[in-house]
């Protein structure tokens, strides 16, 4: 059975392993998941403090990290995170793609000029981040569970999150590892390759972005053709994830990732599909297997658990669930759980 639960310090080794495999054979790992043990330990610690409802030592806004566990083997197969406030107290950087009309009445010319403006507008929105999963689980129900469990967490802790939520989708990277958008723009200013910059952005303070990013708007027409073509385009390996998020109600707006120009999806927190369709129910036993597969979450803070189960829903506000699921959720009959259809 698959279970999503908060990450613990003991998970660190396995998370680093996923980082190793995911980084080499598939799309690169989310840049917001550190590959260094120390940084990862810090991130897990921050998550634990946040889950306890306390403020971290540095006074940073809450950040949460969850793992996908196979309850049979106890192994961790993926991670998913939420930053309650994008930027975590610092500016959160994007490019905003906007247009100017350069028109000359006298010459009868009117042309649309696309411009990338440095933007901090998404700072303070909730950010879904640090998503990684072992390659063999892509496109499975575990993949969906891991991603959507976060929305159930938000639904169960709605007060902790602002009204808007965003998620960055990895942009175009070619087979040889090069990133056209980076090579056309960022590389000139950061004087480093894409991987290095991406790693820094996961680990270092974001000060280096403020220091190195070109301070003025950039004309799209001056980018290389490959870079222009990559604007707002997802990496092909992220398409299942993108589609899942679109079903959730996320839409690409005008914001782009500053490193690879991948799309930034936005949604209203209260309009997220999983949140809207979820219901608080009372847990009851089911005598027999059967029913629709649903996401079930339960527990507050560090006790948060989310899994998939076949449940028999009732209209009375009770939910009939096999007893083995009770154990996974750490709940018993009469406790409140949250359920959302798959």
């Amino acid at each position: 059975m698959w279970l999503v639960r908060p990450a613990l310090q003991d998970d660190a080794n396995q998370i680093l392993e996923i980082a190793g495999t995911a980084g080499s054979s598939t799309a690169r790992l989310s840049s917001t998941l550190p590959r260094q043990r120390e940084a990862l330990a810090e991130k897990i610690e921050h998550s634990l403090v946040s889950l306890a409802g306390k403020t971290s030592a540095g006074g940073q806004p809450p950040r949460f990290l969850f793992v996908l566990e196979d309850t049979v083997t106890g192994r961790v197969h993926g991670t998913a995170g939420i930053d309650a406030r994008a930027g975590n107290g610092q500016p959160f950087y994007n490019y905003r793609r906007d247009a100017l009309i350069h028109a000359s009445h006298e010459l009868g010319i009117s042309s649309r000029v696309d411009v990338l403006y440095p933007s901090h507008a998404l700072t303070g929105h909730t950010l879904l981040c640090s998503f990684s999963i072992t390659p063999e689980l892509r496109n499975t129900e575990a993949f969906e569970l891991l991603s959507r469990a976060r929305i159930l967490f938000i639904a169960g802790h709605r007060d902790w999150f602002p009204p808007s939520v965003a998620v960055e989708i990895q942009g175009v990277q070619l087979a040889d590892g090069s990133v056209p958008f980076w090579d056309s723009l960022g590389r000139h200013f950061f004087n480093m390759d894409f991987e290095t910059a991406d790693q820094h952005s996961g680990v270092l303070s974001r000060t280096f972005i403020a220091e190195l990013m070109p301070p003025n708007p950039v004309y799209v027409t001056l980018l290389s053709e490959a870079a222009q073509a990559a604007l707002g385009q997802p990496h092909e390996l992220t398409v299942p994830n993108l589609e899942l998020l679109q079903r959730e109600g996320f839409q690409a707006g005008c914001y782009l990732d500053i490193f690879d120009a991948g799309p930034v999806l936005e949604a209203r927190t209260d309009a997220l599909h999983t949140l809207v369709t979820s219901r608080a129910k009372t847990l009851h036993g089911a005598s027999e297997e059967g029913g629709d597969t649903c996401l079930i979450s339960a527990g507050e803070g560090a006790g948060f658990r989310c899994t998939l189960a076949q449940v028999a829903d009732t209209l009375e506000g009770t939910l009939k669930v096999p007893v083995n699921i009770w154990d996974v959720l750490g709940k018993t009959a009469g406790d409140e759980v949250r359920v959302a259809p798959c």
Partner: protein
Amino acid sequence: MLVIRPLQENDLEDLYAMAQKAGKGMTTLPADRDLLQRKINLAQETFNQRCAPEAGLYLFALEDTETRKAVGISGIQARVGLDEVFYNYRLSVTVNASKELGVHVRTPTLHLSNDMTDISEICSLLLSDAYQGGGNGLLLSRCRFMYLDEFRKHFSEKVFAEMRGVSDEQGLSPLWDALGSKFFDMKFTEADMLSGLGNKAFIAELMPKFPIYLPMLPDSARAVIGRVHDNTAPALKMLQAEGFNFNGMVDIFDGGPVVEAFVHTIRTVRDSRNRHAMVTRKAVNLDVPAAERVMVSNRSFRNFRVTTVPASCVGTDTISLPPAVAEALQIESGDPVRLAPLKDRAKTAVKAAR
């Protein structure tokens, strides 16, 4: 004899022929009769002080007194950017540095600027092919510095010149192709012509306003920023010898450099001397090499004239001029004149005769 004088009504056809031959790249003198006529009119108003001093356009013709034809032209625009907007790119540097990462990157950047506004420009230099050489180009160019010096209050303290940038035989400019064309949707020659016709509004409307980071442009375009067209290299050299220097501004279309100098530091100005004319009946051999000649001008605002005479004519207080020269300069014995060297060797002659 070749004499500099204010441009006149009857110069139109000569001017048109010269502009036609010069072809593309001569943005301030397009082969357009109406426009040239307007320039002539403006020049006449300027010399006759019938227009505001800052609106003045001082155009001088080089006249061959034998054929009575204008064979060259040069000019001074009293102020630029007052009734239209005058654009340049300023070539500057953006530095991005991170101590944390040990990164320090310098990015050459073009900023759109109007910094040359309200400054005097020397412009519109054109010399017929048949008259190239023999110091004629020097006379045509340097006569302006004598005028600037003589009538300083009509001009700014600093003067500048825009040098033609790099373009090929077909009129293709690497900078235009990489930058301007992406925003203007027209050919370089077309944009250049529009700009020359005095239509600058379209620049404001279509030109990119945000800084341009040079690493985003192809090498071919970066290479021509601040560089002059091969045909303009001699003119640049001449201005550099006068003390003009690249001031970091470049043309927004072809990337040609702007050079500038303070009037009081221009070599011709520093080396010029006052004398009184003495019309002599003695025969003077005017046909000496350029290096042995000096420029001599009258001191008239309305009817400014300059020609060259042998350095040997220069005395301690006076300069001996044959009647033909005096007539060409419209002066008589005793009138004040001004001298300046045409070439380096003449400079020593002027100094020696101090």
